[in-house]
């Protein structure tokens, strides 16, 4: 993945290289992961776990970094809030990024607080020009403090707020305006398609797939009335594998990450999803060279 220096001109354009495959780190799997099983190339970590961490948690992070590229993934910066990003949190994030030598940092296209209230999870932004300007402004603030490319992730949205843009238009314009990359969560796409009644592939067709830098995979469950919940509590389901097959000739991500947050299975279960993802992309005959770090050197592992 290449990026240029300078906040205003950072553009993320993944090159056609073989992606690295990883999981979102959970401490329950610590021993398995530290043993460096075959097929695990990288780790995504929740950034908030390390911003004010006790020494032992930072030591654990360092041990992970010795063995894998570590990709910090934030959940609480609230890029979608009509308020400046918390400067203290930004500085701590910059320190974390430096500590793990991250090639990029990812967050969500969402807001997590409004009117002084912590929502406690990712809430959808309205797809309006005003919201576009707000997110772009927050991204610029980010770019002035943290020196690595930013990826923004599409979320599930249980609430549709009337707006003047579609989600795909919003994402496209935002990435174009800011130079950010896209972290494409395919289970979120599938979940929204089921719940809101649109065709997932049609949605993907409208996205700037050349800007996909990371793909997220994962599973959830269906409630009794058919409503899909993105709970990150199950294996990746077949419709999401289908989306991965569909996208493999249209996007060249640098990393593919499998997420599993609750009801954690033994590690070999999630590793199976990683292997499946790799075999699907290999079937599509991905390119040969390894993705590069921000310094241009190959990512270790």
């Amino acid at each position, binding site marked *: 993945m290449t990026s240029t220096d300078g906040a205003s001109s950072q553009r993320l354009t993944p090159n056609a290289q073989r992606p690295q495959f990883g999981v979102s780190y959970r*401490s329950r799997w610590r021993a398995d992961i530290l043993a460096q099983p075959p097929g695990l190339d990288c780790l995504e970590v929740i950034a*908030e776990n390390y911003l*004010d961490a*006790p*020494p*032992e*948690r930072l*030591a*654990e992070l360092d041990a992970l970094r010795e063995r894998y590229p570590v990709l910090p993934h934030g959940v*609480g910066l609230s890029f979608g*809030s*009509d*308020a400046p990003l918390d400067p203290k949190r930004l500085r701590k994030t910059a320190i974390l990024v430096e500590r793990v030598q991250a090639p990029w940092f990812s967050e969500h296209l969402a*807001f*997590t*607080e*409004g*009117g*002084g*209230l*912590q*929502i*406690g*999870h990712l*809430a959808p932004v*309205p797809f*309006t020009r*005003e*919201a576009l300007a*707000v997110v772009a402004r927050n991204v610029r603030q980010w770019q002035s403090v943290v020196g690595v490319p930013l990826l923004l992730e599409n979320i599930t949205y*249980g*609430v*549709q*707020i*009337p*707006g003047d843009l579609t989600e795909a238009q919003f994402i496209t314009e935002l990435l174009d305006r800011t130079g950010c990359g896209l972290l494409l969560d395919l289970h979120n796409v599938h979940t929204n398609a089921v719940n809101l009644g649109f065709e997932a592939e049609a949605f993907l067709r409208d996205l700037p797939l050349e800007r996909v830098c990371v793909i997220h995979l994962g599973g959830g469950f269906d409630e009794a009335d058919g*409503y899909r*919940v993105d709970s990150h509590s199950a294996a990746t389901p077949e419709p999401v594998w289908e989306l991965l097959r569909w996208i493999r000739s249209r996007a060249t991500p640098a990393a593919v990450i499998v997420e599993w947050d*609750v009801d954690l299975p033994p590690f070999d279960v999630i590793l199976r999803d990683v292997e499946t993802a790799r075999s699907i992309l290999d079937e599509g005959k991905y390119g040969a060279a390894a993705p590069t770090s921000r310094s241009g050197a190959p990512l270790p592992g």
Partner: protein
Amino acid sequence: MALQHLQAVLARLYLDSAYRERFFAGPEAALRDEPLLEAERSQLLGLDQRQVERFARSLQSKRREAIREFVPATAHALGNGFRSRFARYAEQHRSTPEPLPDALQFAGYVAGQPDLPDWPRELARLDRLRLEILNAVFVPKPFPEEWTYRTLSLTPWARVARFEYDLAACYPAARVGDVVVRREVECWLLIGKSGPFQVRQQRVNEATARLLLMCDGTRSTSEVIREAGAVLRLNPPQRHDFAREAQELLTGLVRAGLIAVV
């Protein structure tokens, strides 16, 4: 700026069930005094109630399940009442950016609920003390060479507390939801950090508990041992043995980072 006001209303709709009910009963009236532009007002009037209600439920569910992970014994003890108790807590207490402080607050809330029986309240108290220790950011100093005349203080990694049930025996089973034989007998516990991300509790007798509680930053080692011995009304030979055992205990706890030499 209008987006800010829109998001403030959305946040309230997601979190405040009374406001949500009032809004969907009469949205225009509910928004009358909100500083919104017509476009934002129109967006809010276009919200689907079912979607908002479902999202609100999911937010509470996520918050509840995140907290359950941190207070498993409390959750098991509350049983089917955990959900409703949490719902009441959530209406009164704002969510925190991280779940651990929220869980700490919830455990404290449960421990203070007068309508609950003692059993879940005692477990909540223990869960809360354990979480306080887990949440503490503390770096112990190296073991000092000479500390007999320096003051001792329990560190943020340690708590000493008395419980109405034998939680030393019951807590492991209570934590995983196994059947628990509740022995209603006074139990003093030393709760302390036992490793990275680990907290352990062990039973101590009352004399030991009182000795440890004297490590409050105002007494030196020799004063702690002397005063604890005096409370026990030990004769001189007993006092000699007691002093030796107390010194060993305190030394071990200093090495473990549970007592600081100030």
